[in-house]
């Protein structure tokens, strides 16, 4: 029997991600996994389960709840944490607003996405977290193409794109001074397609809103936004109608656009993703605000 000792690309990516997650557990004292209920953080938590089996994941899942989440996301979050036996921590943007730490945006495009940063940085300080694991991928957006696996943040949580530590081989330098922390991105090298194919291959359960369903929506700036929530103010010209849609990403209701789709199984979603010619972040209104929007938010400490 002749054998081929090479890994297929998804196996190699999985192995790399598991390696990174184990490095986190070994190098940091108090890490947490940032969990949004979106497919990327679901994949990261699935990988974490694999990395430490048969033991439990040695860090909690942390959700920064904007208060504008789809109920399906929250329901899934609680079920999944229980399913994988992970501890979970929830921090509310509303609390930051009530405490006067953050100010609600006004106007028609108001979103709490930016405010998440405040709540997150406060949580990091309060819980003395020295590392937050995120599900960001380098293929998502240009500013992320240069992100490291181990991304160093100063004591203000800021990212300095010009002063990132070089990363060689798989030697990750997680050393830091008091007050500084790290963001670690285990699936940096995965593409959107990799994530979907992996979810399919591993049969990982997802929140329902990823699949085709009927929903009241209205059109804004070329994308469908959910029409069944009061806090998402509509212009007089914006008409709510019922469509068969699904969400390609899961985020704040105010800025997560749906696509018309009848894809109701993972296979159908994968086929749809393969055929589609628009990047998934194209359906997130927050990145469109300016060409360099993501970069700005990173510098401030969001991801």
């Amino acid at each position, binding site marked *: 029997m002749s054998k081929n000792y090479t890994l297929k690309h998804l196996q190699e990516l999985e192995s790399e991600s598991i390696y990174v997650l184990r490095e986190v557990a070994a190098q940091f004292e108090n890490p947490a996994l940032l969990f949004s209920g979106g497919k990327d953080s679901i994949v990261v938590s699935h990988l974490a389960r694999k990395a430490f089996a*048969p*033991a439990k994941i040695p860090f909690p899942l942390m959700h920064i709840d904007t208060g504008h989440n789809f109920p399906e996301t929250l329901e899934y979050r609680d079920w999944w944490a229980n399913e994988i036996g992970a501890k979970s921590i929830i921090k509310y943007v509303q609390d930051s607003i009530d405490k006067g730490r953050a100010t609600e945006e006004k106007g028609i495009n108001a979103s709490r996405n930016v405010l998440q940063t405040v709540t997150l940085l406060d949580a990091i300080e309060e819980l003395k977290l020295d590392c937050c694991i995120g599900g960001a991928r380098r293929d998502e957006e240009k500013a992320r193409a240069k992100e490291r696996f181990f991304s160093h943040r100063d004591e203000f949580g800021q990212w300095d794109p010009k002063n990132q*530590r070089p990363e060689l081989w798989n030697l990750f330098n997680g050393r830091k001074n008091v007050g500084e922390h790290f963001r670690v991105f285990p699936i940096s090298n995965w593409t959107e397609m990799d994530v979907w194919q992996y979810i399919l291959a591993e049969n990982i359960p997802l929140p329902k809103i990823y699949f085709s369903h009927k929903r009241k929506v209205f059109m804004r700036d070329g994308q469908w936004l959910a029409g069944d929530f009061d806090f998402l103010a509509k212009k007089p010209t914006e008409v709510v109608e019922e469509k068969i849609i699904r969400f390609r990403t899961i985020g704040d209701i105010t800025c997560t656009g749906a696509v018309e789709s009848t894809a109701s199984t993972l296979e159908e979603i994968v086929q749809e993703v393969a055929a589609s010619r628009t990047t998934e972040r194209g359906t997130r209104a927050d990145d469109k605000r300016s060409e360099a929007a993501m970069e700005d938010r990173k510098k401030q400490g969001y991801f």
Partner: protein
Amino acid sequence: MSNTTHPAPNSELQSYLDMDLLRFTTAGSVDDGKSTLIGRLLYDSKSIFEDQYEAVKASSEKRGEEYVNLALLTDGLRAEREQGITIDVAYRYFATPKRKFIIADTPGHIQYTRNMVTGASTANLAIILIDARKGVIEQTMRHTFIASLLRIPHIVVCVNKMDLVEYKEEVYNSIRKDYQAFASKLDSIDIHFLPISALNGDNVVDRSDKMPWYEGSTLLYLLENIHIASDHNHIDCRFPVQYVIRPMSNEHHDYRGFAGRVAGGIFKTGDKVTVLPSGFQSKVKSIDTFSGPIEEAFAPMSVTLTLEDEIDISRGDMIVRENNQPHVSQDLDAMICWFHSKPLQANSKFVIRHTSREARCMVKEIQYKVDINTLHRLEDDKNIQMNDIARIRIRTTIPLLFDSYSRNRNTGGIILVDEATNETVAAGMIV
């Protein structure tokens, strides 16, 4: 609660799961056409999404450019957009039905050797660009030297801008000859040559009809078919212990698993193994994964080993075969690339990281600096500045368990970390 479906045997999924992975890096001096080439690969292999293409088209128009500037596709941070240059390592992804590719896109300016070293450290292949009008220049030699120093297994030399030399075979041949004369001085590496025009797409994804004299394959064909199965060491068994798994649950009361990523060789259940540095011996009881035990594990798999005997093992230890052991020593020589603006001083102390082991160390001696343009050893020049390559001697506080870098990139690579600032100040290849 959740919307699960059972995947039927699906041929599309199957072929996706069959793809393998090639990591490559690109090097060239400014304006040799690196960004254009990457843009071309992404665009012609249909890896560009509509909204990305539209954004680039709009930017090109805004800048008053005549054609859609594919180079903008890979253009990253704002500072660079303003300066119009690439300043760091950026990673790009594309796939064909055969392979998935990860590109470490690194700039070619002299001050950025460190970026190329970083990008090269994980690459299977390096693309080195030469402007057909300029031929082999200092930078070409430097990039080739770095690729060889970092032991990138394959080099593809692309002679670009062939359209500007009327697609002439003589130009290509003479550049090729010059390059070979230089490269013959380096450790043997697998080198390929291609005449291309990144701007027009000749021989990038599609064959060029302008260069009938060229009989080789296109760049994409080469990237898809180059043999990468032997890029990992499957001979010397090396398992650096990364993390010890102890579930502390009733169900797995006595479980002690040693988690790590195989750094070399093939481990099988039942293998007799030695644990370093203690020297204790045992047998592999199981190779565990989340989905159940497996019979064997090889690089670069992440697995968990359990052993027959209860031995005290912790992070930084290494599980190896009895009759094939790495060096165990506190003294080592390494070629390093210096990353920091503060020059390296002999007798200075650092934190050293190697596999999953961390120690403190002292640079005992700077042996020589390498002139990376001529490859000469500068024995009298011990002034090691940022981006310099030097050979040094190091003494560590505890023994490291290592192989020479040329034998195994995973067990021969080190980084030095400044104890005060925690910055990574050097990368090293153990000699």
